[in-house]
């Protein structure tokens, strides 16, 4: 499948706009990758600010700062911004930057569409965030937008639905581009089983995205017609069922959570071998584990709705299927630890974040396994226990992996080493505060505190205060992150081409910073450039 892919120079340097135009009209995968990453960082700060509002209100019992409607808008918006604005675009940005470099391609397969995928996002988010300033305020029914509650919202719901449509279009186009790049643009010799795991995980993530984003579009379209055009999909009086929305939504929603973790698995699988100076353990089983997780993610959706009153058989099926997902997930963790085992490890910031990921993501996986046990979920569901679970997998999972990836590849992007000392401070500060933030939420949930409430009974006061303190500290730590990136973008110690002495792979064969155009002539690939292959030994 790998065609000769070369790029002609004169074509390229004919015209190169500068300033704003450069960024608006660019077709270059590195520039678009940068745009995605900056967008993601802004969204991360915005979503973080909303989280600060939430934690501030929950600092002590009683209502002090915001009224309940606004509180609900904050929880809803926080989730939407973090999921669709911070985590997903960050992974797409990393894919844009790294996938062509990793497979030896001159650019993404469909460069114009690549530009469009990105440039839809700012408009989509403007539409979404704008609703906060409407007289009726923003959406307040949780990011899941369950009807009938979501249909009670005033003017905002139509805009929110259209914003989701736009984000969906953007994600689908981005995913198509990445998949086609991987399948069609590999350098000669870059066989599928020589691909770095980051590329593999993105290939599978791309498939998930194309399969489920349209389903989300369908679900919210039905919301729209129920609200404005008199249909009764989710209205029992007309023969529909509010629970039907939840089925369709979670058919999207569960794969969506894997969309947010599979590329993270890929990043960790790149970083660990580098800093262990040892090939990835069980490459092939990693690929199979990823594929089986993706497959299983289509048949577990109703574990998010065990309490809606499904028939016994339904609850049992979804319980068993969910438990099965823990197996390939376990394989991954065991393989990572075996990669480290008898390696020669050093602990630069990317490695620290990767190790933090493994420990904390695993804790999130454990609570996931607990949530899979239906009778126990009847207690855990919709409490802070679930909140703790998904923040362990999403913050210390996805977000830590993104940060690990940023530190890992930043020298390749900017040509300068970041400040290692500050990087380590950032890690330790984040790792400690994030546990202060989220670990007590397990206790809160088990003790009976429901999620999505602006005020709580006094017996929950201590843990909430601890959690809020952790939250503020974690928020502050991220300002340091921005500073470190800004610093590394401006200058510092020059990075070598290889950057890390244990690093293998095509992306380390190009200069640092990576020039705008790389692999104009496709490189020849054999086992010597891939540290990942277990066919090596």
């Amino acid at each position: 499948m790998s065609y000769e892919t070369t790029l002609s120079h004169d074509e390229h340097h004919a015209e190169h706009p500068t300033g704003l135009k450069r960024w608006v009209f660019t077709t270059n995968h590195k520039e678009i990758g940068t745009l995605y990453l900056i967008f993601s960082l802004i969204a991360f700060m915005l979503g973080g600010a909303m989280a600060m509002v939430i934690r501030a209100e929950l600092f002590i019992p009683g209502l002090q700062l915001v009224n309940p409607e606004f509180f609900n808008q904050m929880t809803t918006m926080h989730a939407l911004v973090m999921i669709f604005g911070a985590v997903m675009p960050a992974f797409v940005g990393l894919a844009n930057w790294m996938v062509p470099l990793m497979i030896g391609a001159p650019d993404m397969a469909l460069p114009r569409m690549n530009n469009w995928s990105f440039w839809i996002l700012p408009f989509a988010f403007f539409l979404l965030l704008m609703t906060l300033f409407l007289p009726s305020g923003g959406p307040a029914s949780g990011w899941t937008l369950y009807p009938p509650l979501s249909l009670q919202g005033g003017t905002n719901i139509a805009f929110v639905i259209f914003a989701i449509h736009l984000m969906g279009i953007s994600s689908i186009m981005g995913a198509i581009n990445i998949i086609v790049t991987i399948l069609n643009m590999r350098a000669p010799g870059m066989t599928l089983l020589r691909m770095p795991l980051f590329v593999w995980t993105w290939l599978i993530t791309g498939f998930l995205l194309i399969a489920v984003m349209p389903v989300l579009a369908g679900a919210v379209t039905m919301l729209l017609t129920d609200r404005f055009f008199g249909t009764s999909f989710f209205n029992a009086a007309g023969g529909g069922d509010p629970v039907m929305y939840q089925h369709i939504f979670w058919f999207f929603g569960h794969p969506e959570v894997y969309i947010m973790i599979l590329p993270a698995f890929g990043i960790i699988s790149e970083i660990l071998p580098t800093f262990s100076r040892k090939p990835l353990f069980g490459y092939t089983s990693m690929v199979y584990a990823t594929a089986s997780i993706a497959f299983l993610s289509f048949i577990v959706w109703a574990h998010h709705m065990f309490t809606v009153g499904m028939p016994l058989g339904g609850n049992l099926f979804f319980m068993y299927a969910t438990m099965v997902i823990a197996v390939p997930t376990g394989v991954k963790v065991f393989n990572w630890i075996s990669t480290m085992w008898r390696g020669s490890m050093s602990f630069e910031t990317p490695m620290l974040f990767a190790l933090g990921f493994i420990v904390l993501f695993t804790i999130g996986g454990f609570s996931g396994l607990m949530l899979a046990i239906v009778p126990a979920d009847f207690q855990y569901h919709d409490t802070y226990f679930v909140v703790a679970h998904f923040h362990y997998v999403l913050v210390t999972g996805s977000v830590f992996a993104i940060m690990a990836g940023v530190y890992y590849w930043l020298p390749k992007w900017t040509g300068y080493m970041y400040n290692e000392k500050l990087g380590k401070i950032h890690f330790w500060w984040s790792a400690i505060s994030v546990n202060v933030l989220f670990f007590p939420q397990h206790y809160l949930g088990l003790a009976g505190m429901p999620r999505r409430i602006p005020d709580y009974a006094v017996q929950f006061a201590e843990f909430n205060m601890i959690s809020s303190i952790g939250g503020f500290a974690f928020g502050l730590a991220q300002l340091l992150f921005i500073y470190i990136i800004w610093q590394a973008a401006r200058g510092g110690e020059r990075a070598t081409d290889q950057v890390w002495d244990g690093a293998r792979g095509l992306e380390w064969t190009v200069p640092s910073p990576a020039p705008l155009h790389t692999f104009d002539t496709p490189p020849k690939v054999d086992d010597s450039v891939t540290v990942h292959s277990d066919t090596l030994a």
Partner: protein
Amino acid sequence: MKRTNELIVALAVMAVIIVVTWGIYAVGDNMPGGVTPFSKDVYQLHNVILAVVTVIGVLVFTAMFTSIIVHRKSKGQEPAKFTHSTAAEITWTAIPVLILVIMAIPATGVLIDMEETGGADINIKVTGYQWLWQYEYLEDEIGFYSTLDRDSNAARQINSGVDVHTVENYLLEVDKRLIVPTDTKIRFLLTSGDVIHSWWVPELGWKRDAIPGMVNEAWTLIEEEGIYRGQCAELCGKDHGFMPIVVEAVSPSEYRQWVADRKAEQAAEAGDEPSEVQQITAADEPAHNADQG
């Protein structure tokens, strides 16, 4: 030499991890065991699965931190070259599968038990509204609305000036409690008059969604007299945090007395019985609209 090194470190690491884990549990493993046969089953399941993940966690993290401590470049470790081991990979696929199967069996048993709603002595219809609960005792044809009590309601207003610590059972008290008998199989029939709510009393061991246009079933059998508090567990709008549930379990004889009293009361107030939910909301929560933005 090297192997003994790894072993010693591993033992030390494991000891530390076990102490940390113990500390974590000591801080607050605070899920209630509950007062019904299957709330206790659920508690049991929770403890078992927690133990399982704890043991797995201790083993995994021991291996990981041992490696982190021993296999360092700064200690002059030369990296090994192995890249896979079919035996190991099969083992750590097979053992988890086995553990999961063992976990699934009791979980299935408890679930089947919970779904067995037949043969109840009392049927109570529970209807969620924004933001209060309606209870109807189907056999005795009595019913009432249950809403956040006045003290909590006054204190929870933004900048109310009331110290919520001074309010007894802040946010967990209602004007009219759900009175039920102990040692009696009670079936709940849950539905909603507007959006989705979820009826949850932790001590009973489950929560179940109250969905408009659908009736869900669940049952309980309370073994101890007492007052059990819970809250709505599904986001239902602005006052979702303010529609508590209070169940008061009394002896069957007290219960029959209460039913008789309640019936008489209801007969007396027949005619002007509040059938309109709105009326209740307006009457009992005067400050309701104050914080509507």
